Structure formats: structure tokens, C-alpha cells
């Protein structure tokens, strides 16, 4: 059973303190939406949780594994603002490498993941030729392959149509039903059961 513990986290960017002494716990199956105005530190919080940025002070752990450790980093999947796709690679090659950086996968799983996000015949299409929404779908198809327990999703619904949003919401719900944890930021209304909200 996964458990994420954040205690007394303080984040400062330049001379601005974005948040201080932030503490919360998430147990298996919980979904947390981080909300707040632009510049309130939502993305910074996700990047700190992902181990990409460091906090001024505070502690965070997943199942007592500290951030930066092998176990912590293999437990998380972070999908940020940037597409994480290389234009010279096919959708499938991009997804393959992205998931390889997180967890292993099989060829069949990649095909299924792309099919699940509505990109069945786009496996061998170069990422450079995709629309913004399609690029987002390719990145989010990693959610169907990864074995990470804690998902950190920064504005996952940006550029998606309503059908795409439904597919991702269903996958997030399934992940949490299976004992996973999801933390996301979004300015859109989302239809996720048992959603907790953290205001920054």
C-alpha cells in the first residue's frame, strides 16, 4: 500500500516564497487536485515532488523512501508542461523511451496504450507531424503502460478534447482503484470520485 508523506515543505523562487510549511499525506487510492492562481506554486510543488527541483526545507517520502532514492524515483511518474516528445521519433518510439525511463514495457503494451488514447494508426507517425492535442495524447498514453504508483500530472487536460479528457479521467480513477495515488494540477473542472483539493 503506497503512502506519500509531505511535511513542512517550503518553496522559494527568487525572492518570492511560494508556499511554506506545507504538509499533507496521501494514502493509496487518493486523488489530490492542487489548485491556486497562476504563479502560486502548483508546478513548483509537482517538480519538488518529482525530485526535479529542491525545496528550501521540508521532507517528503513515499513508503519511507526519501526523494532522490532509487525506490522513490521508480515509484513516480511525472508528466509536466513540456511534451517530452522528440520530433524526429515516431509516436511509438517516443512512448517506448519515455516509459523505459520510468518502467519497463512490452511492444504489445505500447500499441494498446496508443490505441487507448485514440491513436491506433499513429504508431509510426513522427511526433513533429502531430497536433498539440495528439502530442498530449501520446504523452498521456504512458499512463496505460507505467507501473509507477504515484502519478504527478501537470495540467494533463490541456489541449485535449472532451473525449480525451474522459479517457484520462477513467484511467486515473482505475489507477487509484488499484491502489495508486494521483496528484494533478488543472484549471478545468474534473470528474474524479473522492477528489481532495489543496489550495495554494
Amino acid at each position, binding site marked *: 500500500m503506497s503512502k506519500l508523506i509531505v511535511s513542512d515543505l517550503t518553496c522559494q523562487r527568487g525572492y518570492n516564497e511560494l508556499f511554506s510549511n506545507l504538509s499533507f499525506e496521501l494514502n493509496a487510492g487518493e486523488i489530490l487536485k492542487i489548485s491556486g492562481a497562476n504563479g502560486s506554486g502548483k508546478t513548483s510543488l509537482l517538480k519538488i515532488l*518529482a*525530485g*526535479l*527541483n*529542491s525545496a528550501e526545507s521540508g521532507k517528503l517520502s513515499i513508503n519511507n523512501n526519501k526523494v532522490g532514492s*532509487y*525506490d522513490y*524515483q*521508480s515509484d*513516480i511518474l*511525472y508528466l*509536466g*508542461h*513540456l*511534451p*517530452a*516528445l*522528440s*520530433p*524526429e*521519433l515516431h509516436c511509438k*518510439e517516443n512512448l517506448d*523511451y*519515455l516509459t*523505459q*525511463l*520510468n518502467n519497463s514495457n512490452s511492444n504489445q503494451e505500447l500499441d494498446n496504450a496508443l490505441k487507448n488514447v485514440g491513436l491506433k494508426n499513429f504508431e509510426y507517425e513522427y511526433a513533429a507531424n502531430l497536433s498539440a492535442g495528439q502530442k498530449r495524447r501520446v504523452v498521456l498514453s504512458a499512463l496505460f503502460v507505467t507501473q509507477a504508483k504515484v502519478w504527478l500530472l501537470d495540467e494533463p487536460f490541456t489541449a485535449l478534447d472532451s473525449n480525451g479528457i474522459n479517457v484520462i479521467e477513467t484511467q486515473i480513477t482505475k489507477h487509484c482503484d488499484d491502489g495508486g495515488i494521483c496528484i494533478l494540477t488543472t484549471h478545468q473542472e474534473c470528474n474524479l470520485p473522492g477528489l481532495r483539493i489543496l489550495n495554494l
Partner: protein
Amino acid sequence: MNIFTKTLTRDLKMSLRNPSSFLNPLLFFVIAISLFPLAMSPDSHTLSNIAPGIVWVTCMLSVLLSLNALFHYDYDNGVLEQMVISHHSLPLILLAKTISHWLLTGLPIILLSPLLGMTLFLDDKSIYVLMLTLLLATPSLSLIGAIGASLIVGIKNSGMLLSLLILPLYIPILIFATSAVSQSQFNLPINGQIYFLASILLISLMASPFVSAIALKTSLD
């Protein structure tokens, strides 16, 4: 397939699909060297005397030209972030990227060097030594360059900064490599220079992936 092989094949695949990324520095290398006989005296004695310096300075500048692209595109599209937070060893991923850079920059320079050496009237033995110095030192250029490239990864228009950071570290390589080729032209022993180049390669091979990883994490923080 492990992450090292995966990263190496991915980077090679990406570069081969976008050939200008590695052909431009190579073209610069060939064009710059072939202009020297036109700009200076076509006399074989003069050219063969300055050939080691011409080839090595041009080689360094062409490697420097290609270094900006080492992490830049992966940074721009967010793949670098994924590499940094991955549970896989970041130094191993960066080593794979650096080897891919050498395979597409250093190796073609080594393969082209006999032809360019001949245009500068280098004798057979000196061409062999030139290739040996390039074989020992171009990997060091890529490895040391990776440290500089990871330090400036988030900075826009940082070409000049990269040169200022990296060129001082390239100077010992330049001195030993050109000295080896020059001495071989006079049939003098070159063991000392070759040992120095080999030790620089070993040190940079051991240190560069770890230093680059720390620099990259600091740059992205």
C-alpha cells in the same frame, strides 16, 4: 535492452533523421582545412609544418560547434527532465548521449583526417600519428564538452559562454596532440604525449558522466 543501449540508439536514430545536426560541424571541418592551402602558400613544406595545428584547431572548433545540440533539444522538449527524474543512473544516460555525440562527430573526423592530412602534405607516419591522437583525444573533447553543455543547458544564446568554459580545458589536449604530430614529422619519440592524451581520456571518461549529471541537476533546479 538496458537504458544505456536504448539512449544510445535513440540519439543515433534522432541524429541520422536530422543529419544537419552532425553534418554541419563536419562540413566546417573539411571546408576550413581545405581553405588553408588557398589562403596561405601552397608550398608543401610550409603546409606540412603547420598541418598539425590546422587539423587540431579546426577539429576542436567543429566539436565545439556541435556541443550546443548535445542537451539543447532534449531540454527544450522536456525529455531531459524525464532523464533527470528517472530511477535509472543519470551518469549512464549521459555517457550514452556523449558516446553518440562522439560517434557522429569525433569518429567521422578521424576517418576524414587521412584525406585532409594528405592535402596538407603530411607524410604517412604523421598521418598515422594524427589519427592516433584524434582517436585518443576526440572522445575527451566530447566528454569534457558534455560538462560544459550541461552547465549552460537552460541559458539562451550561450554559445560564447560554452566556448569560454570549455576551451581552457581543451588547451592541454591541443598542446599534446599537435606536439605528437609535429615530433613524428622529425622522427622524434611521441610516447610522452600519447600517454598524456590517454590519461586525459581515462580521467574524463571516469569523471565526466558524474560531473555532467551534477551540473545538469543544478541547471534544471
